[in-house]
């Protein structure tokens, strides 16, 4: 199966350059629905679902390959190569910021710029480094996910919630957002929250923009500054947006920051 089918790749827009949007743990390419369209006039936009999320091919899930973020980085490289693109702008949210970094180290020619939205090279505290969580808390998270399949059933097939205020969601409400297979999501959570990519940051040579939210418990501001300090050609922008998903809560702010950078 091609990477394009496997990862449910959607290409839109027109332009010389391509912008690839990568979603993080917990959702699918819908994460970018309020951001990506703003770039369709000037870029070819590429959206995809990580294996296990959205409409990706669940059969392609290989627990060994996806036990670490490098398995996801391989997929990202394959997608861009299959589309015959190079010099793309990669916009990676959350864990996909690190996945993007890994892909850029392995295949630098595919990327001309990296936009990291809420990146974290390590979620677990380690000596002077404050990732935001203790090892026990992450272990507790993994146990919670393993023990709590009902917590996922909602995510897999969210009930349709009538929302007359937002007709633009119209038909699409019959499709569920952020579908995820519980067993795969547990594996992805483990790969994400136990990762440590601090050593990879200084190796990055691609120019990089870091978008840091206020009041983000998943990737706190200190972590964003750490990433900024360790990537040579990086720029840090602090967003007004709160929480971990500015692409949904403050798309306009994200769009203008990215436009200013590219």
């Amino acid at each position, binding site marked *: 199966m091609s990477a394009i089918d496997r990862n449910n790749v959607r290409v839109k827009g027109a332009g010389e350059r391509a912008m690839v949007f990568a979603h993080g743990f917990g959702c699918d390419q819908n994460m970018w629905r309020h951001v990506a369209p703003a770039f369709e006039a000037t870029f070819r936009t590429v959206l995809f679902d990580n294996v296990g999320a959205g409409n990706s091919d669940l059969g392609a899930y290989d627990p060994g390959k996806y036990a670490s973020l490098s398995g996801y980085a391989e997929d990202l490289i394959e997608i861009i190569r299959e589309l015959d693109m190079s010099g793309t702008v990669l916009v990676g949210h959350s864990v996909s910021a690190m996945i993007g970094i890994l892909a850029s180290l392995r295949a630098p020619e595919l990327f001309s710029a990296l936009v990291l939205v809420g990146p974290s090279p390590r979620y677990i505290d380690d000596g002077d480094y404050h990732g935001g969580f203790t090892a026990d808390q992450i272990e507790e*998270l993994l146990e919670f996910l393993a023990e*709590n399949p009902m*917590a996922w059933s*909602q995510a897999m097939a969210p009930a349709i919630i009538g*929302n007359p205020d937002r007709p633009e969601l119209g038909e699409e409400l019959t499709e569920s957002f952020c579908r995820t297979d519980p067993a795969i999501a547990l594996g992805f959570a483990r790969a994400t929250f136990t990762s440590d990519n601090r050593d990879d940051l200084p190796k990055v040579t691609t120019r990089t923009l870091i978008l840091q939210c206020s009041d983000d418990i998943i990737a706190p501001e200190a972590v964003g500054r750490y990433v900024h300090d360790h990537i040579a050609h990086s720029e840090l922008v602090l967003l007004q947006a709160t929480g971990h998903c500015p692409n949904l809560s403050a798309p306009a702010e994200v769009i203008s920051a990215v436009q200013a950078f590219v």
Partner: protein
Amino acid sequence: MDLAPADDFQDLFEDAPCGYVITDPDGRIVRVNATFSGWIGFAAEGLLGKRLRDLLTVPGRIFYETNFAPLLRLQGGFEEVALDVSTAGGGKLPVLVNARERRDAAGAVLAIRIVFVRAGDRRSYERDLLGREAVATQSLRDEKATSELREQFIAVLGHDLRNPLASIVGAARLLRRELQSDKALRVLDLMEASVDRMAGLIDDVMDFARGRLGSGIGLNRTVGHLEPVLRQVVAELEAGQPSRVIVSDFDVPAPISFDAGRIAQLMSNLVGNALTYGDPKQPVRLHASTTPGRLELWVANAGEPIPEAAMERLFQPFFRGDVRPSQQGLGLGLHIASEIAKAHGGVLQVRSDRTETRFTFTMPIA
């Protein structure tokens, strides 16, 4: 007591049988009902200004921020999300959460309304179910491994039993070549009959083990005439029981593709059963005919019908009806016959009533 509508609504909010939390668009709590603050042991005033995530355990917080905060934004709400709320006493309150955004005409979020329902019993039940599922899966896996081992053992045993049997056959032949008393010849006849019977039992066991081990019953199909194969089976069985009458009615003029040995085995099992279980005073009837694309073969006998309860398990291995001690077998005959039918793409069926018991084998033919 009459309540003014406003009081009644106030009460419905504060003392509802579920927890209510209302937040501003930014997710900060602006109102909490008495039920919820009572559950978690924090005064309502102390909760104002906090975020929903501040009330959750750390895993719940990560899970909420990565999975459900996006969902709330994307679809304007979510339902039946299982989370744990931290209580003032340091404990966990398992809850199910529904949430919905309230938006103005322009689409801007005005507030988020969140409802909590306690789910402690349900959660522990689910956890218990998961544990049981894990145990059941493991024991099924163990059971499968054991039964595969057992079947491999049967296959090896069956194979190894053939060698001593071959020695006995050889020895009997050797003795026959020499001058023997009448009594010794009778004993040799009995010995050889016993050897045949035992060889048949071993074949059944081997077929069964092969079928179970996944290779199924292998076929060696050739194109040829069916009738001579059937007549041979009838002749052998008649010779064994000369007092019984077997009435045959065969009409299969054109050659068909089948495994002659296997079909003979199937027929022999069916006719053998009919002779064993049928009314000895009545004939056993055999029929074979074709319609376009289909072969039909049946064996019928009169006598006591097969009990209703036995019908369902008839084709399962090691199933035996009520038999006299002299008719002991392994209970594999019908199972193997039905496997042979399946291997030919066909099916073996049974009908049994006061009039007759009839086993019908049908298979597709080119």
